[in-house]
């Protein structure tokens, strides 16, 4: 089956936020209309969200609707700008994107491992592979169950199996890597494993998984320009730029960095 492998050139768009919903203690969903335009992306491409009077912050596109006319972000407010962003219902924001490269290996069985706000890029992969009728298992972990909240409701739109992990009150007591370690899911039953979350979680998984060539990790670095000009997001120890080569990497390409 052939699919349209198409995405916009990086451009500036104006967006209007039309829905903000608190999904859990720490996560919000934000739905944005791209005004009179379409921002067509493929996972794991991302955007810079320009909050007027504040900064531009990098954000994964969690869901794309209406062929890029609408995008959903999943935001964890951590600083001044993201705390402002989650109050801007019915306001205009600037969006620069899509940034980064698509990374879409083909496979029939896909395992998505998300920790915290890492759920955003994993959702976009889930949406993409679901559109190709692939079999998706989605593991979503956090420390506390109130950080899980209503997020699984969105995941279930795309994934056939959803497993939550936290210290108490989730499907599994433990961390995302424990799901692999204790055999709740078996890595070798999947064609590809995708991972996003805090770097410590990515490192733990990088140390654990057996097949580096079939594991895709979503990295985070300080992104300033987003276009490969300023060099602030260079993955040190490599000659790769997160915003140009990433944000998704085949684990074998950066395993040295993660295992340092």
């Amino acid at each position, binding site marked *: 089956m052939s699919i349209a492998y198409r995405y916009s050139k990086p451009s500036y768009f104006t967006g209007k936020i039309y829905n903000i919903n608190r999904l859990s203690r720490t996560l919000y969903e934000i739905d944005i209309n791209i005004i009179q335009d379409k921002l067509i992306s493929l996972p794991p491409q991302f955007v810079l969200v320009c909050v007027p009077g504040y900064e531009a912050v990098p954000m994964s596109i969690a869901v794309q609707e209406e062929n890029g006319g609408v995008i959903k972000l999943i935001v964890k407010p951590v600083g001044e700008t993201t705390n402002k962003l989650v109050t801007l219902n019915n306001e205009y924001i600037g969006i*620069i994107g899509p940034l980064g490269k698509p990374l879409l290996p083909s496979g029939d069985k896909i395992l998505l491992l998300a920790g915290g706000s890492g759920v955003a890029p994993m959702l976009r992969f889930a949406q993409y592979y679901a559109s190709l009728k692939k079999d998706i298992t989605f593991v979503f972990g956090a420390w506390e169950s109130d950080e899980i909240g209503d997020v699984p409701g969105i995941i279930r739109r795309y994934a056939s199996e959803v497993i939550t992990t936290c210290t108490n009150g989730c499907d599994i007591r433990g961390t995302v890597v424990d799901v692999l370690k204790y055999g709740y899911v078996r890595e070798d039953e999947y064609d590809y494993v995708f991972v996003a979350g805090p770097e410590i979680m990515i490192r733990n998984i990088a140390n654990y998984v057996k097949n580096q060539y079939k594991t895709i990790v979503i990295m985070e670095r300080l992104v300033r320009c987003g276009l490969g000009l300023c060099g602030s997001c260079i993955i040190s120890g490599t000659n790769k730029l997160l915003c140009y080569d990433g944000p998704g990497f085949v684990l074998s390409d950066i395993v040295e960095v993660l295992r340092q």
Partner: protein
Amino acid sequence: MDITLETIISGKKLSNPLMNASGILGDAPDAIRLLNSMGFGCIVTKTLTLRPREGYRPPIIVPLDYGLINAVGLANPGIRIGAELVFAARNNGIPIALSIGGKTSKEFIELATIAMEYDPDFIELNLSCPHTPGYGIDAAKTVKAIKDIVCSVASIASIPIWAKLSFSRNLVSEAEAALSCGASTIVLINTIPAMVIDPYIKTPILSHGWGGLSGPAIHPIAVYSVYRVYEELNAEIIGVGGAETWRDVIEFILAGASAVQIGTGLIRKGHNIVREIIHGIKSYMREIGAKSIHELIGIAHKK
């Protein structure tokens, strides 16, 4: 028939006439290695200042259909990183120009003195950044100011000096001033002051308000600038502004440039652009029967 892409800048041989424009990567050893892997004949660092600068808050770049507008704000780790950058370039066997930017001729002298300790192949003077108050076009506001800076630096420099200018109505006299003080090479042109406004948010998009326009939008202006300065002064010139294809690069060379810098093209066309352009130049030279870059420089001028 053997063709060579070698070119001579400030008396030094470069393996090909392409280099990155200052401001594109080039402020960390990893970035120098990345630039080297792209196939350039020379590397130019980000402009280094006496003290580290954080630069402006994002958004610092807006991509447009016809180029980019940026206001990075001369973010850099400070001149002391120069030692590591030159070392990284040496290890990779590629020539390097340290770009320096000061607010006064005194700062430029201080920067050049430190830069020379690191022994780069060239020093590029940033006399033309359009968006950082006190630096660039502010520091080099007049022909007199340009003369003051370039003469001061040249009087102490044992390394070839490039003067990077922007388009202006006084372009020829500015270039003449820099050359008369001892600059070996003129780099033309820096970005052009520019602004974009969001019609719904109703404010400028860049956090700094205005920035510098680069890319295809300024290419013909850059070619004109190179042509004029070559015509009037017969100077050694490095062309920069919107070069994205071999045609753009050849245009610069025919107008009088001995080398060409690429910045925005790396972002719009990707990191393979250098190899693609080199391939295109070779095909062009084969087609017209040219054997060297040297025989193409400036031949668009009616004699």
